[in-house]
Structure formats: C-alpha cells, structure tokens
C-alpha cells in the first residue's frame, strides 16, 4: 500500500475516533464508534494477593450447602492441582469454591476458574477459556433437585436463595451447543432483577429482560487483559475494568456495601490477571516458514492485531461490523436493544468508574497464545486457525468428538468433524447438543475473510507464525 494511502487511512481512523468521542458527548446515548479505543487508568493491586483470592474466594456469594454438595456429587477429588488452595478448597475441583456464609453455613459455589481455566496437555492453564463446558442443560432441574440433600432450616434458607437466583436466570443460561458460553445474556438478566442504586434483588424483573435464547460467546483468554483498553468483544467495557470483571457478583450480592467489599479484593485479582502470559506452543515449529509468515503478518494483519516480539504494539482497534463481516448479532443487540442495561450499569455501583459504551463493531483481539484458544471468532464458530484464514474451508455444521479432542497441529486447533447436516439429523438431545450449526441466530461463521487473498503456501507460512505468538 502506498504510504500516502496509509496516511489517509490513519487520518480517517483518527477522525473517526474524534467523531466518536464528540458524537458521544453530544448525543449522550453512550454509544461508541469503530476505531482505536483509548487507554484508561486501571487501579493497581497486589498480584500475589490477587492469585490467592482468585483460588480461594468466589464473587458468587451464594451456593449449595457443602453437605448437600458432598451428598449430591459424591465429592469428587480435584483432577488438577491448583497451588495455593487452602482448607476445604484444596479438596475441591478447581471450578468450585467453598466459603462460610454469614449464616454460618458452609457453601460451595462456582468460581471464575469454572470458565476461565482449562486443561491443556494434561495441565490446568489459568486464563484459558474452557471451550467444552456444557451449558445446554436445564439448571433448574439441577438446583431444585439438589434440595433433596439439604437438611435443616439454615441450610434450607441458603439453598433456597441460591436456587431462586439460578432459576430466575435459567432461560438465559441455556445455549444450543456445547462449548459456547451464555455469560453475556446471564449478566444482563441478573441486572434486570436488581435496583441499580441499592443492588437489592427483586424476584420480579424491574425492566425488560434480554432476548432469548442467549447469543453464544467463546470465552476469551485472560492473558490479554493487560493489553486491552476495553472489556468485551464489542469493546463496550470502557473505564475501570475491575467492576466488569466482578459482574458475576450480581448473582447474589444484594447490597452496595457487599459489592464494595468484593471490589476491594478484586482489584488485586485484576492485577494478577495482568501478569498472565500465554502458554508457549508445545509442538515443533518450522522457524524458517514462521519467519516468512511473519512478513505476511506484518503486511496483512498488523494494522488490526498489532505486532509481537521484542517491540510489540497492540492498537486496541474496534473494527466496524460491516468491515470485519463476522456475525453481527452480538454487537447489534448490544447497540440497538441494550440501552436499559447500559443505563443500569452506568447508574450502578459497577459503573462508578466505568462507562458501558456499545459499538457496532468488534475489537480485533491480541493474538498471544492464539494457537490455544480454538475455536475462533467471538462466537467460537470457526474450529481452527486454518479455517480462519480460508472462508471456503469453514464448515457449516461441525462437532468435536468429545470434550478432550486431540490437537491438530496442521489445522491449528482442536480436531473436529464436519457434518453434512445440522442438529436435526440426530434424534437424541445428547447428540444434537454437540452440533455447532452456523446457520442459527448468532452462530454465524462468516466474515474476517482477509485470509482469502492468500495462496495455500502463504497460509501455511502465516499459520506457522501464529504458532509462535
């Protein structure tokens, strides 16, 4: 590209950014425009303390009484070691945390790692999004049925509180397909049940609930937290990141005082997350080929995804939906049908230092450790990096064969199987839920077609380079 053209592009981008800020200030609707996302101050914290609390506490402050947890699950031993877990937590699987409720009842609840940690080559990697969780089931069955193991008034009251909250948001917690995550819709549903000023819970929703079924999202890796200026795929999480990160507390945290207490230790958690590094590619890399790939990357990918290595640079760029072309539903819903949630957030404790500003676009993410984060795009619709670079190679219907597929070094991603038809070909729900059907609403695999201009050799080189990030 001639240098004058590049300059023109930069100017246009800069102009867009200015327009975005001006536009926002003028119309007051709190929307953002595509373009670079400016940095904002993040509070400092103690990363060592952050790790300790991450593995020993949970922001979900209600749960199943421990005794009922043991009786109903058989108290399975932890499969992976998680250093620093203390007391009862040392005996629990990494995705759940035990704690004493103010009532004195010991509770067990999900923690951040349930979604934000995953096994990789036999070891648990903190920060790797788990892409094999099953959110297709009906949580109401599970939480209500757990009541059979609950005895006594104090435990009953705790179980009831937990079961009521989970049941209230159950319709937003069920996805079509194994692997995709409903966290975004869940959080909005929780907001609808709370007064933004007091955070008091209301069994009846206080505003219109989010649409159903929930739009699918892939769990992004934590090790990019330090690079990103905004949270979430559409970059709407501007300002202080801590309070976005602790939004799961909206499940059971019923007062500002309690939320403030979580905030006090969660800034340490953020500080810890900012220290995380992507895992290194564990298989052989053809360094010559990767070097050729780096050249291609610099010319084709760098403007959005930045540069890597000694002098790395990440542009924090929000790319318009019509430019990137990926499934627009998530961005559109946040932009056109979420004003009430934006208002709630900005008026609440969670928005004290932050401003939710949805845009019609998606952030081009940092690509550190991208080899480990399959499947790709914000909805996890593209199973491998090879398919990311070649739209013609993307399967319309596909599935993983189980939750621990082999790693495919050639395609760069987890081994998958293309299917000729969608889920309807299977009679049982157990089969259907494995089918990723890209024709469903929000599950589309189009867009990001920038790799289509490459020839086969160029793609191979680029893939090799991506393994090095």
């Amino acid at each position, binding site marked *: 590209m001639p240098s004058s053209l590049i300059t023109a592009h930069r100017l246009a981008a800069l102009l867009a950014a200015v327009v975005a800020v001006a536009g926002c200030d003028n119309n007051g609707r709190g929307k953002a425009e595509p373009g670079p996302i400016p940095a904002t101050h993040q509070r400092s914290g103690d990363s060592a303390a952050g790790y300790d609390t991450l593995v020993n506490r949970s922001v979900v402050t209600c749960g199943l009484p421990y005794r*009922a947890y043991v009786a109903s699950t058989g108290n399975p031993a932890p499969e992976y070691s998680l250093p620093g877990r203390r007391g009862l937590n040392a005996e629990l699987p990494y995705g759940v945390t035990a704690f004493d409720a103010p009532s004195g009842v010991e509770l067990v609840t*999900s923690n951040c790692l349930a979604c934000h940690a995953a096994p990789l080559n036999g070891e648990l990697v903190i920060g790797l999004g788990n892409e094999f969780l099953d*959110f297709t089931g009906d949580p109401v069955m599970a939480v*209500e049925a757990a*009541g*059979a193991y609950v005895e006594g008034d104090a435990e009953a009251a705790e179980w*009831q509180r937990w079961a009521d909250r989970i049941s209230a948001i159950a319709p937003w917690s069920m996805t079509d397909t194994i692997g995709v995550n409903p966290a975004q819709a*869940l959080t909005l549903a929780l907001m609808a049940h709370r007064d933004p000023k007091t955070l008091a819970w209301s069994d009846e929703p206080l505003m219109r609930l989010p649409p159903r079924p929930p739009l699918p999202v892939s769990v992004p890796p934590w090790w990019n937290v330090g690079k990103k200026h905004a949270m979430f795929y559409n970059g709407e999480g501007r300002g202080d990141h801590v309070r976005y990160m602790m939004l799961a507390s909206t499940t059971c945290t019923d007062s500002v005082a309690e939320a403030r207490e979580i905030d006090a230790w969660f800034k340490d958690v953020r500080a810890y997350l900012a220290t995380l590094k992507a895992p290194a590619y564990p298989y052989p890399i053809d360094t010559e080929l990767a070097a050729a790939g780096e050249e291609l990357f610099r010319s084709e990918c760098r403007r959005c995804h930045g540069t890597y290595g000694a002098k790395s640079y990440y542009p924090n760029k929000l790319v318009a939906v019509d430019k990137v072309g990926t499934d627009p539903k998530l961005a559109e819903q946040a932009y056109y049908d979420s004003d009430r949630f934006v208002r709630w957030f900005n008026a609440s404790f969670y928005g004290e230092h932050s401003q939710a500003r949805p845009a019609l676009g998606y952030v081009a993410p940092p690509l550190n450790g991208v080899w480990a984060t399959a499947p790709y795009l914000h909805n996890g619709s593209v199973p491998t990096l090879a398919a990311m670079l070649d739209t013609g190679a993307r399967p319309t219907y596909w599935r993983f064969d189980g939750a621990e597929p082999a790693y495919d070094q050639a395609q760069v991603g987890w081994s998958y199987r293309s299917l000729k038809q969608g889920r309807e070909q299977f009679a049982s729900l157990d089969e259907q839920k494995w089918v990723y059907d890209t024709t469903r609403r929000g599950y589309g695999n189009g867009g990001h077609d920038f790799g289509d201009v490459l020839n086969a050799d160029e793609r191979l080189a680029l893939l090799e380079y991506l393994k090095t990030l």
Partner: protein
Amino acid sequence: MRWIAPPLALAGLAAAAWLLWPRTAAPPVEQIDAASLAQAFGTDTHGFAKVTGHWDYSFPRDTGPHPAYRGELWDLIGQLTDSQQRRYGFRLGFVRIGLTAPGTRRESELAATAVMTAGFALIPCGNAELIQDQRASRTALGLAGAEGDPMRVWVEDWRLEQDADGALHIIARGGGGALELTLQRAKAPVTADQAGLFAAGKGPGFYFYFEPRLSAQGRLVTAAGAAEVQGSAWLDRAWGDVGAGLAGGAGQLAMNRFALQLDDGSELMCIHLRRRAGGGTPIPACLLIGADGKTRLLQRRELTLAPVDGSWASPLDGTRYPLRWSLAAPALDLVLDIAPLREAQELRLGTPLWSGIVSLQGTRGGRTLTGSGRMDLSGYGTGT
C-alpha cells in the same frame, strides 16, 4: 459460570421413596407402616448387601426375592371392569424386611429370617364402601415368605406367584372382599437404567424396575356379590435400603408420582418435585413407554404437569390434596386430565399421603384418549 450440577439421580431417589411404602389402601390410622418398621431396624446393614453401582437386571430372576438385601417390595395396583361395566381399583402389596442376612446361622425352626407385611384393597368406583385389609407375619414355619424359581411371595393365604409360563397369579381375601387374578405381561419390564432417571453410577439406595402393563383377568367379590373382571395392572419392584428414611421426597423436596396407562397402548411414569416450603419452580419429568416398548424421557421444558381446580380436604386432619391434575406434552400432541376414581384414598404412614387410583381423559394427536393409573401425592400435610 458453571453451576454445580447435582446428579439427576434425585428424581430417581424421590421416586424411590414411593416404592418403599407398602400400599395398603385408605384411611385407618392403625395401618401397618412398613416404612417405619424398616427404619426402626436402623440403617446399619447388619451383614446385608449395600446398593452400590450397577445392577444387571435379569428376568424372571429379579421377579423373585433378593434376600441379600434388607428390604424388598412387590407393589401391584390396577383397574378392573366387570361385565356390567362397573369399575374397581385394586392394590396388593408385599414388603419383605430382612431380620438376618443370608449365611447367618440360627438353629431354631421358629427363628425367622424376615418379616413380611401385606396390604390389600378393593376400591369400587362411586360410593360403595372400600374393602381393605392388611397382614404381617414372620417368615418362620411357612407363615409368610418370598421365594424365587418359581417366584412365590405370600403372607398367610395371600399370594403373588409366577407360573411356568411367566403369568402372575394373585389371591387375597379380607375386609369383606376377595380377589383372584391372572396377570399376563403385556409389556417388557422397564428397569432403572431404562427409566433414565439416574445419573450413571449414582443410585438412590436401592434397585428397581416396574412392569408398566400387565393384562388382568379374574374374579372379585364385594358386598354386591361376585363378578368376573378384566383390566390392567402395574407392578413396582424394588430392593435395597428400605430404611433410607425417604418420606415422599427427601430433604427440602416433596414428590408426587403418577403411573399412567393410556388406552393407545402407551404408559407414562411421571414425577413432580416441589419444595416442601413452597416457592421455587416445580420440576415435572415423565418417562413415556410407547406401544412398541420404546422409552422417551420428557423433561421439564417439554411438558407441563400441574394441579387444577381446587383441592380435597382430608377428613382425618384437614390436609388439602390437589386431586385433579393436568398434563400436557406438546411434543407428543398429548393433553391429559387426571382425576381420582374416588376422593377418599388417603394413606397415613408416619406422614400422611394420598395414594390411589385415577382415571384419565384426554387427547393425543386429535384422537380421544382414556386410561387409568395410580397417583401418589405427598408432603401436603401441615406437619411435614
């Protein structure tokens, strides 16, 4: 957020609670309560086998007793019609409670290895009086017993036995009535595995299966005289920890159970779980057994099962039971109204429950449907 997912064994566990009760019919407070009896022996296994892991069901073997396990139940319930088209419900249940585990040596021939209890009821449709009786005996001296190959369960002269062709025969008389029936298996038994109500490897403390349809033919005697009858029956079988202390649910949950036979050749085994304290979301689940014997599990989101039209107050303690229910399964294009054959079919076994015969009326795929079945309602008493 991944929510803790306790095994759905719960549904099975609660279903189990029902199977543990001897089903004598109707009100008198002085009923033999085998559930309490079993509990009185405590939870110590005293050499009896524990229910762990998977059971390989085999027939006719499992029709007969499993003396290695402390508790066991044969529970038969059905509906009959005479030549005048008069309808009757009936129930006959046997409970075996082991006293000594097999291998325990006792010299006296008066020494019993088990206690057997039994309950019998004839329930005429309408206002005619209920016929009911119950018995209990030790297994010494042939007074009562349970044997396999061929299967024979008896308490004094009440009997349930299987002949060489696999047909079951029952004889019971008492309370001013009598019943003799031959029961032919019209459907294969459905085991706990097939019922799909258990998470793998996580049972409720006992093994169970049920025979969802037995065709019945025989003769009964009531105050109105003798009559030839025919109809259908449902047999529940369970063995294991009878003293599990399950009273119509467990913990914070109460459970209702429905065993329904439809005249299109299919059956439904449904449960309805709810919080004892009220509130929350009741959880219904049904197992459909098709005319071809294939099973399909219908979960909460695929069906509605809820009480309609007020309730019936027990004359014993005022407990109000919702006796009319409506079931809808859009995926099957099925709508069903469930109503009691008669209202007064309450049981008191430590905790009060309503357990009785129901009539079914509805449509499936636009076609009118009728049927009959059994409904067990628990946890409605104020003291529970």
